[in-house]
């Protein structure tokens, strides 16, 4: 589904990703762990097409297409979704209106008919129920005035509506207390399916207690230095990143 080969990327003049390889198959959940400054968020951003990064080498193919050539919206149309570490507030933009515009843009790009207001509302109610969310969420401006936990839940809610093929969760656990973390993790688990792959980008093993990954990769200094099963995360928890020679960046 996703194939990253020798990916190199800069922020300004600084090389952050230094030849990164990653293969993700359909329905798999991969955790990417690593110390601060290792390039975890850069990877998430480069995959989603955020400005400010220059790819200097390597390739990324998603569903057989060259991902790096595409605009962010075209990547979303293909089925890519980024749950932001810091979800952006959009004052004045209603959550329902926003999600309907997003879903219909994706459906249109795929040649599917757009959903009318009634069907869309039904879909939203259904997903709210699955995720145990309050429907006051629908009337509010996107993320505006939301608490940290509400913002993360809104990301998962968007993911539930847009039904991506590959979801990248960028430090979704950061800033959450244990209850909020459990709610978010339950949401992600509810959306796991043989058709949907997930990349969990995280600093801590904690999230992986709630969302069990199939694979764990350790990213350090812009490269994946170790890959393994979920036990690798426990080992890291025990021994720290230093164990792999992946010290915190200065």
């Amino acid at each position, binding site marked *: 589904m996703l194939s990253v080969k020798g990916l190199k990327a800069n922020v300004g003049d600084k090389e952050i990703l230094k030849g990164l390889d990653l293969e993700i198959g359909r329905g798999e959940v991969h955790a990417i762990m690593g110390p601060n400054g290792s390039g975890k968020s850069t990877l998430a951003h480069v995959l989603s097409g955020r400005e400010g990064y220059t790819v200097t080498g390597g390739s990324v193919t998603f569903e057989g297409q060259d991902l790096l050539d595409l605009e*962010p919206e075209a990547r979303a149309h293909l089925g890519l979704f980024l749950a932001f570490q810091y979800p952006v507030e959009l004052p004045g933009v209603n959550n329902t209106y926003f999600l309907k515009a997003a879903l219909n843009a994706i459906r249109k790009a795929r040649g599917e008919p757009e959903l009318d207001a009634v069907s869309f509302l039904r879909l939203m109610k259904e997903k709210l129920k699955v995720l145990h969310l309050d429907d006051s969420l629908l009337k509010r401006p996107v993320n505006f005035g939301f608490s940290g936990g509400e913002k993360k839940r809104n990301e998962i809610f968007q993911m539930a509506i847009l039904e991506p093929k590959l979801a990248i969760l960028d430090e979704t656990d950061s800033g959450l207390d244990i209850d909020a973390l459990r709610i978010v993790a339950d949401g992600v688990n509810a959306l796991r399916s043989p058709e949907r792959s997930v990349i969990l980008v995280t600093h801590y093993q904690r999230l992986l207690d709630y969302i069990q990954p199939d694979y764990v990769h350790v990213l350090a200094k812009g490269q994946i230095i170790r890959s393994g099963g979920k036990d690798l995360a426990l080992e890291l928890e025990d021994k720290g990143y230093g164990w792999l020679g992946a010290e915190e960046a200065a």
Partner: protein
Amino acid sequence: MKATPGNGFAPWLADDGPAADTGLAWLDSRRAQARAQVRDQGIPTTKQEAWRYTSLTRLLEQGFTPTAKATTPLEPRDLEPLLVPGLEAYRVVLVNGRFAPGLSDLQHLPAGLRVGGLAQILKSDPDALKDRLNGVAGETQPLFAALNTAGLDDGVVVLLERGAQVERPIELIHLSVGMDEPRVAQPRHIVALEAGAQASLIERYLSLGEALYCTNSVLELSLGRDAVLKHQRIQTESANAFHIAGLYLSLGAGSRYQCINVGLGASWARTDLNVRFTGEHAECDLQGLYLAGDRQLMDFHLDVDHRLPNCSSRENFKGILYGKGRAVFDGRVYVAKDAQRTDAAMSNRNLLLSEGAEVDTKPQLEINADDVKCSHGTTVGQIEPEQLFYLRSRGISAPLARRMLCLGFAGEILDCLTPEALRDQVAEQVGSRLEQAPID
């Protein structure tokens, strides 16, 4: 230096001109006085503070002629597509500045409400207007108000008696229709709510076609003690029009006034809002939204005069500019020495969507009292790249994402509009304007 305005307004300035003899001595003398003022003042230049950012050259180069009495015969079905869907209102319509009874809907006015054409009332019941015409605007007037006084042809009169509460909005439609040559319409509107009266007024400036014309309107409004008025002003003139509006407001003790200004149309638009409190504990809330694109100027001047204690005012204007659009916001809040416990907050925020767009914003607080709560703020910014990326990462195209963010920015003002049908219509107009905007 003394000068006469360009030939556009010359016909009204001759002492033997068409407007000189109305048959009412008091009106003739006010007109003569206004003509003298225009001649004495001359044309303001950009050296004068009130016109620093807005040049009158293009306006005064035009060869306007007065609106003829006979206008294009319009039928109610011509008006139909311009109406707010489902809006039930007492409707008074002017075509090219002249009251059009055939298009108006003034049947079954409730007790205590009088709505009619100014020219008609000047004929049938001039005493009802004698103290009101210039009653709020005063005898000494700036250029365009004086020109309006010198040349006023018609307008709308709304009088609401003591304690009368009108549920349905009163809708004032000023419709312009292209003529064979550019015309000037100078309507004078008089709105007066006596003590305890409550109403809602929707004032719309529209056009059929994209003709070049000029509207120079003056609205004098007075609220008696504890009167309440919601006033919504929607300006969607032709893209080639000149639009001038002077509002003179007198707010009595305990009265509450809200004015929502939406400026979308015209090639050159200037609005002056002059607020004077005439009693304590009055509240004034001025909201505004303007869009300016290529070859478009939107100029809002606010002058809020806190002369008495214990009054509050809000001034909240937002602008979206694109292409080579230009806007001016000049807001002045004056607090007199004795106006203690004044509560005033002014804000002007602008979103610039292109390199070529420009806004000159000048909020001013002039405070002479020591026990007041006053603030002002102004911002000029662009669409946040973070917000744009967030929307695009959800599959929304860049142009739609920009439009959504602009509408979100405008939403705070749009959401003040009532009923919902009016809000939706204006939001759609804003949306379609943004759709045509060449956003870099």
